[in-house]
Structure formats: structure tokens, C-alpha cells
């Protein structure tokens, strides 16, 4: 199973810092996401893009994680040479993470 099967995501930018949210479609899946989507895994996935540290914040009230990644935007949105200077595409790449296949009831929707 991919993270994309159970979560959605959005990227934001401020200076040279990118943040990516990972939000469970069904809040019942939040513990699984919290256990397997770690700051280390995100740092490893984006090792070519993110040069600085990755910090994870947990927001259980909405079943979400927030990853804050430093030195992630080519020196900052306003001077980056990158095609996607804002890092808007990062969220979709994160959703490709492999997750353990656990038995789950089908979502109603």
C-alpha cells in the first residue's frame, strides 16, 4: 500500500523552508501514519532536494503530521534556480511512500 491510499498532502513555502502536511483521509489511520511516516524517512526520500534538517510536528486533533524541511528550496523561493521554486510538487512525491499492508475495513466513500 502507498501512503497516497490513506492520506493526502499539501506543500507550503517560506523562504528556504518547505513544509509538507500528511493528513489521514480517515482519522482511524492516523496512528499507522504516525508510526511509519517519520522525519528520517522523509529526509531519506528527499535527500537530493532537502539539504537541511527535517522536523515533524503531530496534530492528532485533525489526524495530521507536518514536516518542516530546512534548506529545501534552492536557497529560497525568490532566488532559486529550480523549475518548481516553491517546492509545490513535493507533496505528491511524499505520497508515493510505501506503507505496510494492514487489514483495514473499506472506506465508505
Amino acid at each position: 500500500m502507498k501512503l497516497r491510499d490513506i492520506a493526502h498532502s499539501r506543500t507550503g513555502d517560506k523562504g528556504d523552508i518547505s513544509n509538507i502536511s500528511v493528513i489521514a483521509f480517515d482519522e482511524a489511520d492516523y496512528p499507522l501514519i504516525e508510526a511509519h511516516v517519520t522525519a528520517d524517512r522523509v529526509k531519506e526520500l528527499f535527500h537530493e532536494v532537502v539539504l537541511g534538517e527535517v522536523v515533524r510536528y503531530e496534530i492528532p486533533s485533525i489526524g495530521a503530521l507536518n514536516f518542516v524541511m530546512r534548506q529545501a528550496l534552492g536557497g529560497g523561493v525568490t532566488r532559486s534556480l529550480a523549475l518548481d521554486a516553491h517546492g509545490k510538487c513535493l507533496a505528491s512525491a511524499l505520497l508515493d511512500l510505501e506503507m505496510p499492508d494492514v487489514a483495514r475495513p473499506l472506506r465508505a466513500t
Partner: protein
Amino acid sequence: MKTIRIGSGAGYSGDRIEPAVELAEKGDIQYLVFECLAERTIAIAQGAKLKDPAQGYDPLLAERMLAVLRPCHEKGIRIVTNMGAANPAAAAAKTRDIARSLGLEGLKIAAVSGDDVLETLKSGDHRIEETGEPVSAMAGSLVSANAYLGAAPIVEALKAGADIVITGRVADPALFLAPQIFEFGWSMEDWDLLGKGTVVGHLLECAGQITGGYFADPGVKDVAALARLGFPIAEVGEDGSAVITKVAGSGGAVTTATCKEQLLYEIHDPAVYFTPDVVADFSRVRFTQEGPDRVRVAGATGRPRPATLKVSVGYRDSFIGEGQISYAGPGALARGRLALEIVRERLALTGVEATELRFDLIGVDSIHGTALSTAGGQEPYEVRVRVVGRTGSLKEAQRIGNEVETLYTNGPASGGGATKSAKDVVAMLSALLPRELAKPAIAFMEA
């Protein structure tokens, strides 16, 4: 309990205009807010103001005001916007002229200034946050320095009866917080209510990003009628309770999922969201779907505001030159890679002075580098070569695009669609300024 409805008419300077007209005509709103200032907008507008003292405000201000002034006037909707950019006074004068040309009378327009702290920053002992260097060391390259003002001067303008409030740099959520403070008589030290009002502002400030924009992913997250996307409305109560909704019949959707994505958009630590008015805490926010396109937001709180204001500092940084060319059909990838090798060698051979260079294959590895992109191992049908570099002069930047363009006659077979560009770069850094050093001022004029 008293409630008001606030509409968000723009999420950035170039945003669509009809959704704002739709809000004014059918949104049953009392306030229409336009958030139009990106990080470097003011730095660029400062250049326009230097050339012409009547310029330096948002380039779409006239078009927006022409579209919404009449319906807003007829329904008594007040407008709050940061479209003043580097020149709120000129923006207010232009708005007055537009109101007169439409035959609208009795409109009171306020221009909020005082965010420009360039001289203050240059003269004092202040440091750049990102580098730790003294601001004075960059004095020669500084273009602009604007403090993020809070809600207070907007509240004051509304108290004085302004129908339209035009600001320069103001914290985005403050544009939405100010009408709540004014209408409900909230104390400027009621941190809990200011935190609740700030989360409403944060959710609305990117307009369509909470009504289904920047969200759709076919088959996984489908959104209907994005071409007619409706912009959001917050229905706020005097106790800080709030529901996010939109005009019935407009495109898009307001769901707990769209709200959750926007809550964390451009957020670092959700428990510590700094604004000039309050340190808001979003970490215990909850969303409840109360009906179609109606989501209740609850649980935001706040703590006392910081002693400093964030200042956005614009400076002349460098020049960027770029060239692109496409290859397609069998062997496109190999020809694209050959093209990159040729340009790399040419830039060295001809001595182009670049401090930073990037060699991308669009369609292959330009967005996230090679490790993520090549995992599938499939050959693309077409690739686009992109070479981009940073230089110290425009002339040097132009040489980069030229070396891509000359691939037409000197490079691999059947390269097409070459483009090139060179530009100067005004980049942004930040500083913190003791808040008493920024002195907001309000000027009024009547149409």
C-alpha cells in the same frame, strides 16, 4: 449572538476576479478582503514607485476595483486589502478616481502606511535573520524593508468609518482579523479570541485554496467545476466560533479535508504561529462538516504577541540566465542528455562566469532530482532540456540562454522550440524589529 460574514476575494495578486464579484453580489457578506502581496511584490513595486510617484501599487487594483466597487457600494460591503503594496496613498487615490468614474458617492477610503521601515533598519543595529549579518553591511544592495503590521491600524480606519481600507505590508491574517475585532469589540489583549480570529484569517487568506483549489487529484480527491471555483466565506460569531462556506452554486467544495490542508499550509510549529497581533495556537483545531460546503472550525487559541515585528527585506541579489530546447521521439532522452553535456562543455570553454548552474531534463528529473525520478526506468516520449545559471551581470546571464539556443544548428538532431531568458533577481531576507519602531499612519480621502 452577533455574527458577520467575511469573503476572501483574492489569494494572490494575479488571482481570478469573477469569484470576488460573485461574493459581492451573492455572498451576503459584510466584508470583502483581497490578499495580494507575495514575498517580493513590494520590493518590485518599490522600483515602479521610484520611476513614477503615482505607481507602486498592485497592477490589478484598477481592474479589481472597477469590478467590485458598485456591488460593494450597493450592498454596504466594506473592502479591506493590501493592494497598496509600496504605495497605499496612490492606490487610495486611484480607487477614489474609479469610484467617481462609476458615479459612486460618499465612499470613505483609508490608506494605511508606516510599514516601510527601510531607513529605520539601515540606521540601527539590526541583523538579517537568515545570515546573522548586520543589515548595514548590505546597505548598497537594499531595495525595500517592510514590517508586517498588525490589525490595529485597520481597526482604527474602520472605526473612523472607512468603507475601503488599503494597506501595504500587513500580516495576511490581520486583514481578516481586523473586521472581527472592530465588529465584536474584541480587546487587543484577548489572546484566545485573537487566536480564533487569526485561524479564520489564515484559512481564508489564500481564497480558492480552501474551496477545492490546489487540492484536486483525479480518482483520489475529485473536485467539481474548478473552472467556476467559488471563493470562501467565513461566518464568524462574536465568541470566535466560525463556519467556512462559499456561495451556493459556485464550483469547488468546502470539506474537512480542504480545510485541514489549508490549516497546515505554510505552517511550521502549529502551536506557535507568529503574527504581529498574537501567537496563535492551531495545534488543537478541529473541523466538523455541518452540511454541504459548510465546515465548522473550533479549538484555536492564542498567547501574547511577540515584542518584535517581522520585516521583509528586499535586495538586489544576482542575475539568472536560462535556456530551454525540446527533443522527442525515439532516442529523445539520449539526445537530451547529449545536449546537456554540450552546453556544460560550452559554458566552460567560453568562460561563462556563473556562481551556480543547473542542468535539468524536464519530463525526467527537473523537479525532484534523479533518485526519485528514474525509479520507474521508463523512457519518456519527449524531454525538454533546461540549463539555468546565476551570474553577476545581465550580459553574462544572456550567454547561458545563447549556448542552449545555438544547439539548433550545433547540437543533437531535431531539437526544437528553443527559448531563452535573462533577468535580474530581487531576493528576500528577513529581520526582526522592535515593534515600537514601526509607526503606522492612516490617511483618509473621500470619493
